[in-house]
Structure formats: structure tokens, C-alpha cells
């Protein structure tokens, strides 16, 4: 098997002492940020993105993998202990996980989550290793029309399927797409929307937008709420941090089912890991109702195990989709794509040919990151909980300082700092009114791809729009998209009528 051989070479690249240190550092930092209340893995990646530019690409991405998965681990730790999920994908874990913690089984809950995340992530990494090269080879035949269909798919799926309000999701998407058009147009060399300001000729930096929307806007949001919301009560992790044989046997099928649900979702761009986590949770609840003694509502170990496995399985295969297709399906993946671009690398079919060392080292580092995370999370969860002792004012003051640091360090100009502040305020307004921010990020990242492929397709056909549906791949993509939208509309109507009854 060629994949195994390449993966082994990748391990060779990833397991150098320096790279091991970056994985470890990434895992520690990611977990630390994920653990902090209200902060999720996308904020961890956004804050650390500018820091990694001091490293060489391989080390930077290996560190990223650690941060990304570390953020997820930390996030579910806090979802369980404090009932404060940092992002939507950890919400499903709070229901049963937090009940387990309240019930005095915090340590077992953390172990269930960590092992579930490990199983899901590992399985996903194996799948990616074997399928990503095939996916990349297949998508190498894609032309402009196919890429436009793919981008449109990601846009519609993330903005309307995942968010509660399609209008708000689309508004967020349009803002992102619009921001991406600022700067010099790549096809014709025309200045667009720059107001003649030289700092804007290169466009608005993705780093600035990412940090503004995901970190600074979040700080403003916390500022608006911190003195008004009663504080959540921290749970003290106590008891044995391992699972008994019976508990393990109880959780095992849920881990497996969760992983199976999560895997395909990383490749279908329906946005982030929240859909599969909720699906996995729901499936376990339905199964639980049929048992002689239902455990849901009283801290069910299965209700925690399944969404954790599903979430990490999706995250893993999402990285595969990012590498093979260049298609980010979540805000975090969008930031990773931005990082690739900073190094002049374009994820997608050609990456496997052009930078095989990087790709395979990155894939190998997924495995390493999983193992490292299991080691630092299982026994030390109670130490992580100590981070909660930082008083919130200092915590957020520190985060704000890092926002400024990151953006100034990458751009070296005060103009970007003012831009950061302005977009941060916009991000806060969006957050305050329940507008999802992931579509903005995805619009910003995929906007240029969508625009150039649309224009290239139309240019080559002399303005004939039928070229957009000219091949079976585009028809297939639009067909699936239509199906997904119809299913969403149906489930929304069903849930609305149920509410009325």
C-alpha cells in the first residue's frame, strides 16, 4: 500500500524532536484556550495563527493540528465541568456530560469524552490517510464550473442549513464575500473597493478578519454580558479518572455509532461538527428510550460518548476534505486554509503532488496529536480546571492583548489595528443579534475561488450560463444541494408544527 509507506515517511517527518515539541506545545496551548470559558477551538486557532508565521510550514501545521484538536478536547472538558461550551460542536456534550459532573462523576465523564474523542479522531485520521489521495486524484479533473458548484454548495450549506435563521446566515456570508472582493482584482488587475487607500490594495487580510470576528468581537461580547449574567458554578473534578469495565462496555457501542455518524460529515460540506454531534446525541436518546431502564436525563454515559466521538470524527475528515479539495467546512478549517495560503500553498488536488512531505507529516501529526492529547487530558483534567481560577477581567484583557499582538506582528501597520477594531465591532454586533459567524469566514476564504471560477467558466463560454450545469459532476452537486435544502426545510417545518401541538 502506497499510502502506508508515505504515512510512515510522514511519521519520520513528524517525529523529529523539534516537531514533537511543536505538537506538544500546540496541544497544550489549544487545550488551554479551549478550557477557558466561552472560548473554542476556532478562537484558539485564530489567536495562534499569527504566532506560527515565525516557524517553517511543516512545524507550523503540525502545531496547528495540535491546537485544533487540543481546542476541541479543552472545549468538551469545560462543557462537562462548567456547562460552558466554547462553540456549537460541544453543546451536545453538555447535556449528559454536565449531568454526570453534577452527579459527582466528573472524572468518568472527562474520561468518556477523552476516549470518545480519541476513537473518533483516530478513525477519521485512518480514513483520511486512505481516502484523501483518491479524493484529490478524483477532484483533479474539476474545472471552473465544478469548483464554483462546490463553493456554492459550501456557501448554501453553511449559511442556511446549519444556522437557525437562513436570512442571518446569508447576511453573514454576503459580508464575508464582500470583504473578500476588496483589493486588486486578480483577473483584470482593477482596484476594487479600496477607496484609494494603499493599505487596502492587497485586500483585507484574512488574519485581521479572523482575529477581529472570532476573538476581538467575542471579547466585546463578553464585556457586554460579564457583569450581568450570573456566573456558572464550577464543578470540581473528583473521583477516579478511569472507567470501570462495565462503564467501558456501556460506552463502547456509543463511541462506535458516534464515529460512524461523524465520519461522512467531514466530507459533505454542511458546516462544522454541530450537526453530527446532535444527530449522534439524538440517536443515543432514541435507543435509550427502548431500554428497560432509560439513563438519559440522569447523566447517561452513552449520551456523552456518542457526540464526542462524532465531533472529533467529523473534525478529522474535515481536515481531509480541506487537504484534498481545498474546501473548508468549518470556521476553523477556513483559518487553516488561510494559513496554507500565507505559506504560498494552495490546498486541493495538487497539494499532494507539490508538497507531499508537508501533507504526510501533517497527517502523521494527527495521530501524534491524538496520543499526546489523551495523555495530557486523561490524568490532568483537574489541573486544567485550575485555569478557571484566572479572574475573568485579566483573562479577557490578556486575550485582547494577544489580538493586538497577532495582527500587528503579521502586518506591522497601525492601519490593520484600526481595521481590526472596526471589524471587531461589526463582529460583536453580529454576535449580539444571533448572526452565525462561520459563514462570514467561509465566504471570506472561498469567495475568491468562487468568483474566479465563476468568471473563468463564463469567460470560456462567452457568457453562456448553461456551462455552469454542463457536466455530471456539477449536476450531481446541485442535486445533492437541493436535496439537503429540501430536507432542512422539511425538518424545520416538522419541528415547528410539533411545537405548535
Amino acid at each position, binding site marked *: 500500500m502506497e499510502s502506508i509507506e508515505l504515512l510512515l515517511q510522514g511519521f519520520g517527518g513528524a517525529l523529529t524532536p523539534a516537531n514533537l515539541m511543536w505538537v506538544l506545545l500546540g496541544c497544550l496551548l489549544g487545550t488551554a484556550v479551549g478550557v477557558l470559558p466561552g472560548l473554542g477551538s476556532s478562537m484558539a486557532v485564530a489567536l495562534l495563527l499569527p504566532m506560527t508565521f515565525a516557524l517553517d510550514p511543516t512545524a507550523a501545521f503540525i502545531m496547528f493540528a495540535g491546537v485544533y484538536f487540543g481546542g476541541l478536547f479543552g472545549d468538551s472538558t469545560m462543557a462537562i465541568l462548567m456547562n460552558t461550551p466554547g462553540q456549537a460542536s460541544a453543546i451536545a456534550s453538555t447535556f449528559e456530560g454536565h449531568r454526570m459532573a453534577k452527579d459527582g462523576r466528573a472524572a468518568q465523564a472527562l474520561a468518556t469524552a477523552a476516549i470518545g474523542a480519541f476513537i473518533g479522531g483516530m478513525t477519521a485520521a485512518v480514513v483520511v490517510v486512505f481516502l484523501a489521495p483518491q479524493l484529490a486524484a478524483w477532484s483533479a479533473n474539476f474545472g471552473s464550473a465544478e469548483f464554483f458548484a462546490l463553493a456554492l454548495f459550501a456557501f448554501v450549506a453553511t449559511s442556511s442549513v446549519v444556522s437557525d435563521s437562513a436570512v442571518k446566515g446569508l447576511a453573514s456570508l454576503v459580508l464575508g464575500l464582500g470583504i473578500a472582493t476588496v483589493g486588486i482584482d486578480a483577473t483584470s*488587475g482593477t482596484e*476594487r473597493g479600496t477607496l484609494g487607500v494603499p493599505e487596502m490594495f492587497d485586500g483585507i487580510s484574512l488574519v485581521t478578519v479572523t482575529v477581529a470576528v472570532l476573538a476581538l468581537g467575542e471579547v466585546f461580547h463578553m*464585556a457586554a454580558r460579564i457583569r450581568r449574567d450570573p456566573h456558572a458554578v464550577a464543578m470540581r473534578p473528583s473521583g477516579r479518572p478511569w472507567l470501570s469495565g462495565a462503564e467501558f462496555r456501556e460506552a463502547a457501542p456509543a463511541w462506535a455509532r458516534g464515529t460512524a455518524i461523524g465520519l461522512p460529515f467531514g466530507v459533505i460540506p454542511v458546516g462544522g461538527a454541530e450537526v453530527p454531534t446532535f444527530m449522534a446525541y439524538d440517536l443515543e436518546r432514541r435507543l435509550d428510550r427502548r431500554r428497560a431502564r432509560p439513563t438519559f436525563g440522569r447523566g447517561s454515559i452513552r449520551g456523552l460518548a456518542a457526540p464526542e466521538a462524532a465531533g472529533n470524527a467529523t473534525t478529522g475528515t474535515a481536515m481531509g476534505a480541506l487537504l484534498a479539495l481545498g474546501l473548508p467546512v468549518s470556521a476553523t478549517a477556513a483559518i487553516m486554509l488561510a494559513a496554507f495560503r500565507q505559506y504560498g500553498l494552495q490546498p486541493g488536488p495538487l497539494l499532494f503532488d507539490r508538497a507531499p512531505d508537508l501533507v504526510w507529516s501533517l497527517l502523521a501529526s494527527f495521530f501524534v496529536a491524538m496520543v499526546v492529547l489523551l495523555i495530557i487530558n486523561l490524568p490532568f483534567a483537574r489541573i486544567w480546571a485550575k485555569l478557571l481560577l484566572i479572574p475573568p477581567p485579566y483573562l479577557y484583557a490578556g486575550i485582547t492583548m494577544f489580538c493586538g499582538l497577532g495582527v500587528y506582528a503579521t502586518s506591522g501597520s497601525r492601519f490593520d489595528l484600526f481595521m481590526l477594531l472596526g471589524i471587531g465591532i461589526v463582529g460583536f454586533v453580529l454576535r449580539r443579534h444571533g448572526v452565525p459567524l462561520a459563514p462570514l469566514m467561509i465566504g471570506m476564504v472561498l469567495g475568491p475561488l468562487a468568483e474566479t471560477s465563476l468568471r473563468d467558466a*463564463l469567460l470560456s463560454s462567452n*457568457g453562456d450560463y448553461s456551462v455552469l450545469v454542463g457536466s455530471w459532476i456539477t449536476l450531481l452537486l446541485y442535486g445533492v444541494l437541493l436535496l439537503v435544502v429540501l430536507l432542512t426545510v422539511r425538518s424545520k417545518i416538522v419541528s415547528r408544527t410539533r411545537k405548535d401541538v
Partner: protein
Amino acid sequence: MSSPTGPTPETSAQLQDVPPPVRTAVGTDTADRGFWHGRSGLVLAALMVAFSLYLVYGIVTMEVPEGTDFPGPAFFPTILVVVALVLAVLLVLHYLRSPEVPEAPASPDGRTWRTHSDWTSVAWCVAGFFLFALTLEWLGWILAAALLFWFVARGMGSRRPVFDVTLALLMSSAVYLAFAEGLQLNLPAGFLGGI
């Protein structure tokens, strides 16, 4: 065994024996809050309109080179403007038909506020960042970042200004040492650098 659901905000408020008058006052107050109550989301529609005006200005002033084939550089922004305006109309309709009143969590001391967001706190943070951006290159990283830290901590409710000054300077110096000296990132030394 108690019921599986935890204490709701209401029951915990009763346990703490909070005098109810403030709460009932809110109840009667909501009716008189006027048009804007729950409709502040209209600012989203305003944002979309402002953004599309910006794009329109960009399209109008764009200098497209001669002989550019369809679709030119203005093609994509034009689509965005149309979609943004349609979304703005839909947002206005949404907020007119169904105002979104955020759930105000029961505050421990039973206080209520006129606005959902704590604008004083936000203003401290925004002002801090603005000053930081303004003075960074002149004051240098250590002083400007300490200023930022102090403002945000203050805005977030810290009530120990003197201790905060020390902590802020400690933090900004630590960051400077780690990133400017350690990782060779480009941070301004400011006028302190000349000494």
C-alpha cells in the same frame, strides 16, 4: 431524590429571597418600552445597506480597463449588492413581524437594565483598543499594551486599578520578551527603545 432538572433561575431567586417588586416592575415596563424593544436587530439591516452602499461606491468609481470581456471585475460585487439589499429587506420584515427579545437571565441582586448589552463595559474595551492602536508606535509595545490591558480589565469589572497597572506592565513586558526578543517578531520599542 430531587427532580433531575436543576434549580431554574426563578427558584434560585426565590431561595435567595430577592424582593420581587423590581421584577414585577419589569413586567409592566416591557409593554411601554416602545418600538425599539426587541427590534434593535434592525441595525443588521442598516449594516447590510451600508455595506452594499460601500460596494456600489466601489463599483461606480471602478476604473475598468478597456476591452475587458464579460464578466468583468464589477460582475461579482454587483451580484453581492443585489443579494445584500434583498437580505436587508428580509431582515427588516423579520424584525418588524417578530421582535427578538433576548432572555434576560435573573441577576443575583434583582437589578434590571434598559439595554441588553452593558455598553459601559464595551466602551471601556473599545476605547482601550483604540488608544492602543493610536499610540502603539509612539509609546512602544510595553506601554501601549499595558494601557490596553488595563482598560479591558477595568471594563470587565476589575476594581483594583493600582494592582492592575502592575499586572498590565508585567504582562506586556513578558509578551515583549517572549515574542520580540524570543521569536523575533516585529514589535515597536517606542521612545523607551531610545533610552
